[in-house]
């Protein structure tokens, strides 16, 4: 269907279209009319394409475009949109009957979620019950305790250790499978008993939130704050996803419109957003200590805003703008939530299981060849500087192979009673900010390029330890007992 574009009496858009169509000699993957319309709207890509295939004629085309523009007060894009809209209105008038609608209860609720006075409490409510209670306490606490503490520690691990002792004669190979960092006793145990339940619970909550249509409302609520850190409300989606898996969230930053926003979002996801696995372990570590939890959340939140603000000041580029459709609130359907959660967990698990196994093998190899001893030794000094026991350096190093791995390592340290309250806070802050896991590190490079990806990682390495040092210094000096 073609619309007959009119424009002012003395000069119609059709006239310009006709003139340009005659000048176009090459063939394009879309009709000449479409090419012409895009040229009139200053589409850079199409202009480049036409320049390549038409050569000199582009100058004449430019002249026609200029002439056409001179007849309109507004950009031609606007004029075309107006005429199209008119056409649409005519069609709708003829074909569509619109029934009067009564104001539904969901509309009231929708307004409550968008008004900051009621919306922020609702957001906190969602975060508290969805993330803290359901994912953190129930998923990462109760369920993980059962799977790890009861299922693995009491039954599965001893069972595999026994079997390995029977069928594998060499001590070294036994270590590979069932040693302290064995494929089964560490790799599979972490993946199945720790990460799997936490991620599953996170995705259940995320799917429910997503299906209600709450995310765009969250986006409009936080747009103003996000503008201060160089992002728009649109970045709410990757940031919320980052609480699930920062690697996946970094991939989703592609949906952000400008390069500047993508860099800022990648930086913040790598630095200050703890992923669900990490979050689960951190909640488990600090869960019994509300004061420590508050300090941790406050510091990480401040760093998020501070680094975002600084980055947005340093990076050149246009200010982001925000526009988004706000769909009606809907009751999520159970089957949809289950299907989505299942698909996501499956994808995620298939992606991370090999990494966990590989990490276990690397660690085993590293132990065998004393490489890790060397690296752990290197890390000992900075770890001591931030006031942690030297054993924590192992957690930091392994943390790189999988961010949550490191958090889980701390969890083990804590179970052995090696950390006091201040040390817990400091290590949680350091670990949250610390280098992204190897998967995210690779994703940063893949999405942002070598320079930016490496730059972000180098900055984070330095910055996380500096912040941890300062936090430890202040807490110790103030004599805060947590």
């Amino acid at each position, binding site marked *: 269907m073609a619309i007959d574009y009119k424009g002012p009496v003395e000069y119609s858009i059709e006239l310009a279209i006709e003139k340009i169509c005659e000048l176009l000699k090459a063939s394009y993957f879309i009709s000449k009319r479409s090419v012409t319309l895009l040229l009139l709207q200053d589409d850079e890509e199409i202009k480049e394409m036409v320049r390549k295939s038409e050569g000199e004629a582009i100058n004449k085309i430019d002249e026609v475009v200029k002439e056409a523009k001179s007849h309109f007060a507004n950009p031609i894009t606007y004029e075309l949109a107006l005429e199209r809209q008119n056409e649409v209105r005519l069609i709708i008038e003829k074909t569509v009957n619109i029934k009067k609608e009564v104001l539904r209860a969901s509309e009231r609720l929708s307004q409550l979620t968008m008004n900051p006075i009621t919306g922020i409490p609702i957001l906190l409510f969602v975060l508290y019950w969805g993330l803290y209670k359901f994912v953190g306490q129930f998923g990462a606490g109760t369920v993980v305790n059962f799977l790890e503490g009861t299922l693995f520690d009491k039954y599965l691990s001893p069972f595999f250790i026994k079997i390995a002792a029977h069928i594998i004669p060499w001590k070294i190979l036994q270590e590979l499978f069932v040693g302290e960092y064995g494929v089964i006793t560490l790799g599979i145990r972490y993946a199945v008993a720790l990460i799997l339940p936490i991620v599953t619970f996170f995705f259940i909550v995320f799917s429910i939130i997503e299906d209600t249509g709450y995310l765009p409302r969250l986006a409009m609520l936080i*747009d103003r704050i996000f503008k201060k850190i160089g992002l728009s409300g649109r970045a709410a989606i990757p940031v919320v996803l980052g609480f699930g898996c920062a690697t996946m969230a970094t991939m989703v930053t592609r949906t952000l419109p400008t390069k500047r926003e993508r860099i800022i979002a990648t930086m913040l996801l790598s630095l200050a957003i703890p992923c669900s696995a990490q979050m689960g372990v951190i909640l488990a570590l600090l869960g019994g200590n509300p004061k420590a939890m508050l300090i941790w959340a406050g510091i990480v939140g401040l760093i998020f805003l501070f680094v975002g603000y600084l980055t947005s000041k340093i990076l050149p580029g246009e200010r982001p703008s925000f*526009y988004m459709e706000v769909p009606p609130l809907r009751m999520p359907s159970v089957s949809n939530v289950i299907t989505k959660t299942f698909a996501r967990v499956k994808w995620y698990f298939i992606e991370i299981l090999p990494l966990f196994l590989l990490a276990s093998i690397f660690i085993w190899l590293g132990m065998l060849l004393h490489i890790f001893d060397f690296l752990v030794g290197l890390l000992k000094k900075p770890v001591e500087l931030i006031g942690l026991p030297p054993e924590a350096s192992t957690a930091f190093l392994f943390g790189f192979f999988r961010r949550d791995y490191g958090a889980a390592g701390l969890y083990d340290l804590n179970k052995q009673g090696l950390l006091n309250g201040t040390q817990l806070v400091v290590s949680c802050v350091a670990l949250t900010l610390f280098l992204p896991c190897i998967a995210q590190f690779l994703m940063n490079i893949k999405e942002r390029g070598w320079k930016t990806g490496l730059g972000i990682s180098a900055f984070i390495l330095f910055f996380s330890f500096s912040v941890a040092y300062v936090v430890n210094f202040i807490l110790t000096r103030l004599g805060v007992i947590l």
Partner: protein
Amino acid sequence: MTLTDREEEILEALWGELVEEKNQSCDISVLKDDEVIKKLADLDYVEIKNNQIKLTNKGKDEAKNCVRRHRLAERLFVDVLDIKKGLVHEASCKFEHLLHKGLDENVCILLGHPKTCPHGRPIPEGNCCKDAKRIPKKLIMLLSELELDKKATISHLETQDKVMLQKIIAIGALPNTGIKLIQKFPSYVFQIGKSQFAIDKELASCIYVRII
């Protein structure tokens, strides 16, 4: 025909005595042979019986306009030109005679249709004041100035920024489309047709609406 300055001043004085002070008539025995009074009577602005003077209907209209011009001139001097109050009356007396035929309306609009002169006396309403009351303050305004839940249509978009324009077009916020503002803070939320959209302050400041 135009009245002389002195004729206008006498009409003004009569307006004060007869209309504002509500006296039935005014004794002019002292001035009974004054040429100006005679001329005003000839022109049918005043009636004189037994040394008592009254304004005719025609005279009342003319007197009202004279007073209006004088007091608007005072307002102009005080509010805009910042002349000291003591000098105001004198300056206005000269200036008011220049404010003829539409010029007084322009001054009145410029000053925002003031209701009293700097001395607190009422300024008679002109046609422009009546019009200003009848028409709502503003027909076309920024989307951000629209009251919540009030129905309006988009009148036009104002931006030369192509990227912003494309975003607004993508939402479908085009002229003659009905629009209802749902919320202003922290972002602008509005309804177009069956759909709701959230936009930031910058985009909202490109959209102008007309109240229905």
